């Protein structure tokens, strides 16, 4: 009886010890998407006057840090492919005919979403958890970039306690400047055990009045050969789609 009382006291007295931020972040990664998958995404840029520009991308990911995104629409961008291998990113434009290195802070679409957002790899691949703080319905994770190559130096991630999915992420520069806020919405069951937000909205104090939205469809677990994630394969990526 004394042992049980002691255990209860410990659990009551040290609730913070029950939170393992790294473990939560790993679960967030896997709940957001399988380690290897294919998906379709629509990016919508909304300007202050309400006008929109839309992009559709076919995305493939393998492992923690290999991602390819093929532009299917609009016609001006159709056939463009972006590849990410860890910290390395390339853009292939059909007319240019060869991949050029791009940086994570650039945006191939010109929207608030930059390349790091469009070619996102696992959070655990890029960030260490510095602190995990329990809130009423959520857990606040404070993340610090593992290297200077990462697009955002720090992230504040609010994670839904029950679903273990992010609800809001604030992205900061090394100077402490808030670069953008990401809002995850509309949790949807995509089948195959994948239940995640289907909508991601972002706004930025640097682009007042502008908003960008990313919508997900057709996410499914798929395994790809490693050769697909190479520069030489980029002109032929679209042949992989069913």
């Amino acid at each position: 009886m004394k042992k049980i009382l002691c255990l209860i006291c410990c659990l009551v007295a040290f609730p913070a010890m029950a939170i393992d931020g790294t473990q939560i972040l790993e679960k967030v990664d896997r709940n957001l998407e399988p380690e290897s998958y294919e998906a379709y995404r629509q990016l919508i840029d909304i300007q202050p006057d309400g006008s929109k520009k839309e992009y559709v991308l076919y995305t493939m990911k393998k492992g923690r840090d290999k991602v390819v995104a093929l532009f299917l629409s609009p016609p001006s961008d159709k056939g463009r492919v972006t590849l990410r291998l860890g910290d390395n990113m390339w853009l292939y434009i059909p007319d240019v005919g060869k991949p050029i290195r791009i940086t994570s802070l650039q945006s191939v679409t010109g929207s608030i979403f930059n390349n790091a957002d469009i070619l996102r790899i696992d959070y655990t691949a890029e960030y260490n958890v510095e602190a995990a703080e329990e809130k009423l319905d959520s857990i606040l994770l404070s993340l610090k970039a593992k290297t200077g190559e990462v697009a955002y130096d720090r992230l504040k991630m609010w994670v839904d306690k029950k679903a273990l999915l992010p609800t809001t992420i604030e992205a900061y520069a090394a100077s402490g400047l808030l670069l953008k806020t990401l809002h995850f919405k509309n949790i949807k069951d995509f089948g195959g055990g994948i239940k995640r937000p289907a909508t991601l909205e972002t706004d930025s104090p640097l682009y007042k009045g502008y908003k960008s939205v990313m919508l997900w469809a057709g996410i499914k677990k798929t395994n790809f050969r490693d050769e697909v994630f190479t520069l030489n394969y980029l002109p032929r990526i679209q042949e992989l789609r069913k």
Partner: protein
Amino acid sequence: MNFTQRQWLLVSLAFVSASAAQAADEYSFDASGFEKKPFELGGYAQIKQDHFSLNRNGAFYKLGYFGDPQRESLDRSTATVELTGKLRGGIGTFDFHTHSDIQHDQLANSSNNVLYEAAYSIRPDPGMTLEAGKRTLRWGKGYAWNPIGFVERPKDPNDPDLAREGYGMVNADLIVNRDGPLQTIAFTPVLLPVERNVNSDFGSTGHLNPAAKLYLLYRDTDIDFAWQGSGSRPGRYGMDFSRNLASNFEIHGEWARIRNFVKPVTDSLGHSTSEVGNATSYLVGLRYLTEGDTTYIAEYYRNGTGYSDEEARQFYQLVDDAFIQQQQTGNSALFQRALALGQGSYGRPNPGQRYTYFRAQQKDALGIIYFQPALTAMINLNDHSYQVTPELLYTGIKNLDLRLRFYALRGSRLTEFGEKQNSNRLELYARYYF
């Protein structure tokens, strides 16, 4: 609560419910319309207007407008259509890229229809592709120039991103991916035959012209080794690299050596000789992105096949003297010799030996998304002549690109940009993608 209040409440509730439903539906996305199709067709149509301020003292004006009415300026309208398509069947894919344009100016009307690419490829395995047909291969990491672009037509440094016509060839792509510091190995062998009606502008006929490129991704650095065997052109080999030093800072370089390169050289009297020797070209460059979204590109290019300042001056002097002789005596023999040289290697876009290229491009300038002003400068470091090109690009209208560019070419007499055909050029185009 009276009846009117209740009505208002119901109306308000209905409005709130409708708004909520609309908000939920606002961002619905159905991907079924984007599945792969057996046949795809796309491309763009473009209308371009150019105004040229002609450089009547320039050597290339004299060569280009010989026999034509002399002009101070020229206005040219160009309509262009480029079509790209794919036809899929079984394990193979046939793809094509066509270019058609019609030009009109005060002197002439002309039209072009060129098949840029048309090739059939099969992929028996993700690591292997076999291809035959007309294909544009682009080798090298340079933005404005590519010393190792051995099996391609040279790019226009004024518009390096423009599509170009390819060559008929058979090629393969073999890719191996592995764990460890050497992540990727890719080998691209090429056979480029040259006959009277096939690739005849590549070089002398009757050769098969083997070439190959080996790509390595080693410790986050792209490295290529390229080779072209001697045949229609002298043999050559080279390498390039590209690497990110930071997430916003990339460096790249190229190096190429051509064996027994033949360079026609003239003096100001029109005495031409052919110099034979090994030529080494190289390029180093960087790309840097600031926190304010300004991209800087800078390159230094050493053109081993180019002309020294003195060699170029001799040619420009020859054109001047030949033009005067033709005007004064009516004898055009010397002028025809100068014209032939001007249509050859002296007339290349950048015939000099040392250049620097600089480009600054601002994304979303003045707070306007999709508005990109840019400034490009190209300097001939031998004769200090230069070209400066400010431009405005707007891509905010669906499927439409609008670009305004102004080219200012400056240089003293007997220098590259001082002897070009025009001294200024204003260009405006609207390109619609479909």
